[in-house]
């Protein structure tokens, strides 16, 4: 009997964790779909926040279920958090600034910028600082907090035109075919894009499950930037969806007895 009363809450907690996992996944996908026409980095941040919030609620509920008072737990976490913040305040400021910089600061690796009297080409953006290669071959490290406080001038020619669309695809999608399909689709938007800059896809990283890509396009008129970004996002999302679906159907056909040998 004691064993049952001990195991039962654990079982409930496990179920809560499972349900939380499912809700977080569905919510994240839904938010992604709803926001697929908005700015990609902003959409990614909102998805991440929703995911985090659901997990936080789920975990606190699960912990309460096993009998640990959540208020004490939250107090301990809060005190620990305050301690960490006081200890590594500057690092956190920089990391936080990097987090916001991803969304709001209009430059990327490869751009030339000027900030606080320093100028150079951005060769790295890490969680603490942004590294510039100066015109005289010197390296300048600019703390990310400075980028949030100070005016940053992006001196890259045509910088205002460039829109970078981050894309994630599963590794079972044929990357060359996907890239080819994306280019074909985006090429149709040529009248709204700067014809001197055809779209270029770049692979940012390849993990065991998925590949991070970015698609660079150049809009021809600044007022169309958001509309074009939304349209490209929509087209890319549709392609990811249709190729994923085709892949799943292909796999299902391969598994079925009537499928190809």
């Amino acid at each position, binding site marked *: 009997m004691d064993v049952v009363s001990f195991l039962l809450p654990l079982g409930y907690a496990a179920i809560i964790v499972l349900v939380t996992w499912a809700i977080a996944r569905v919510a994240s996908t839904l938010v992604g779909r709803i926001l697929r026409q908005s700015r990609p980095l902003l959409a990614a941040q909102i998805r991440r926040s929703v995911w985090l919030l659901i997990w936080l609620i789920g975990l606190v509920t699960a912990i309460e279920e096993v009998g640990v008072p959540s208020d004490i737990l939250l107090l301990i976490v809060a005190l620990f958090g305050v301690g960490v913040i006081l200890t590594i305040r500057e690092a956190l400021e920089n990391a936080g600034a990097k987090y916001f910089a991803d969304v709001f600061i209009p430059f990327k690796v490869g751009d030339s910028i000027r900030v606080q009297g320093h100028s150079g080409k951005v060769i790295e953006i890490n969680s603490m600082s942004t590294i510039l290669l100066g015109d005289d071959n010197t390296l300048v490290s600019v703390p990310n907090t400075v980028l949030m406080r100070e005016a940053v001038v992006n001196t890259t020619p045509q910088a205002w035109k460039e829109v970078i669309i981050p894309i994630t695809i599963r590794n079972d999608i044929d990357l*060359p075919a996907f890239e080819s399909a994306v280019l074909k689709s985006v090429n149709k938007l040529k009248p709204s894009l700067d014809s001197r800059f055809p779209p270029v896809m770049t692979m940012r990283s390849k993990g065991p499950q998925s590949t991070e890509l970015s698609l660079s396009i150049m809009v021809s008129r600044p007022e169309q930037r958001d509309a074009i970004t939304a349209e490209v996002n929509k087209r890319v999302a549709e392609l990811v969806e249709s190729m994923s679906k085709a892949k799943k159907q292909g796999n299902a056909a391969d598994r079925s007895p009537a499928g190809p040998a």
Partner: protein
Amino acid sequence: MDPLRLCVNTQTPLVRFRETGTAKKKKAPPETTNLSDLTDGVDYTFSPGGVTRMVFPLVRRMIREGTLRDAHWVALNPTGPDTVRAGGLTLHSVHLPKDRLKSYGIVKETLWGAAHRTVQDTPPDEDVFWTDDFSEYAYYNRLTAEVIGELDQRYDFDLFYIHDFQQLPMGQMLGPLKPKIYRWHIPFEQSAIPDHWKELLTTYFDSYDVIVVSAGRYREALKSFGYSGKVRKIYPYVDPRAYSRPPRRERAAVRRRLGLREDDDVVLVVARMDPMKGQDRAIRAFAGLASRYPRLRLVLVGNGSFSSSKGGLGLSKGSRWREELEGLARRLSVGNRVVFAGHVPQRELDALYETCRFTVLPSIEEGFGLVVVEGWLHSKAALVTERAGIAELVAEGKNGLLIDPDRPEEMGEAMRLLLDDEERARQIGGRGYETSKQCSLDAGVRAETEMITHLVGR
């Protein structure tokens, strides 16, 4: 320096495989075919041109000298086995699906035509980079990048060496983490590149650590174009030991096979069948001399490129051009004095070099012109188009004669000069032999090793 692991990438494969050869039957992975188990001429043939003459000897020499530990060579090879071992070198085939080959071919011909100024009927505002065909060109390059990426996971290369304009996007696709050299083999003149191509080409160029070109003027043009990275000029090179002087008996046999009499004077053009190679100019110049020199024969060696071959892209450019040239020769009443030799094995080519009075490179545009060096290695004088990279090595009247391919009468005059003054032709050929040392494998390996050592930094 520790021996390096190199990955070479070209469009043209080192060897072309016959559809019916043993290699095809052995295609199923993971079995790796060994080139030594196959028969040259039956299962495969070495691709003519730079990959066999230049890149292959370079890689072999660098492995032998310990600069390289081993090398992997990735190339488009629709009919090739997945992997072929060739000594310290492993060849990997990229299999581009047939339905995508055509579009890829269209883009590459457009880029090539622009660089060689042979595209005359393309509207100036047509932008190949926005077409569906270009998406297939990107497909081919991404497919190649995927193959190289997988190999890199397995072998952890120290360096990528990308050749040919067809592979230009590779630098951007392979990412910034490892050193990448790009060799631009074809002509590069800023005025030949449409303005609206500049931005994308610059993006691609900028993704390499070093760009190697074949002549000083291409280096200057690349800088004027806006490329601010490192550019090296390394003259293309051949291994002089790969060339021989066949005895009289063999030379006579080749003459007989091609229908040439013992006392015929031969003017030799060695070039693949392509309008850019300007064989039509040579035929026109030759026709102007034909009545004055009744024993003079023009021999055209070469057939289509990898792109024209059935095992390659299957474009019919080579055979179309040959038909045009045959028609031209007939119209100019020299049909029976122009010999179309097609592709000939190296030994026969050596015999023809030995047999000829001089060689002609009549190209409209030419990245470099290694065939001039081949003629020089046989101490033969050369008429060289002023639009070839090698023209900067020709001192007028000393080691060759420069010609304008658009002026056949001047070309004919230069031919007459060498035909009438045999001693002068011999002296020019002798000095050409000395010049050829600048384009020897030894010189090339020195320059390439120095560049690679500097780039990899160990």
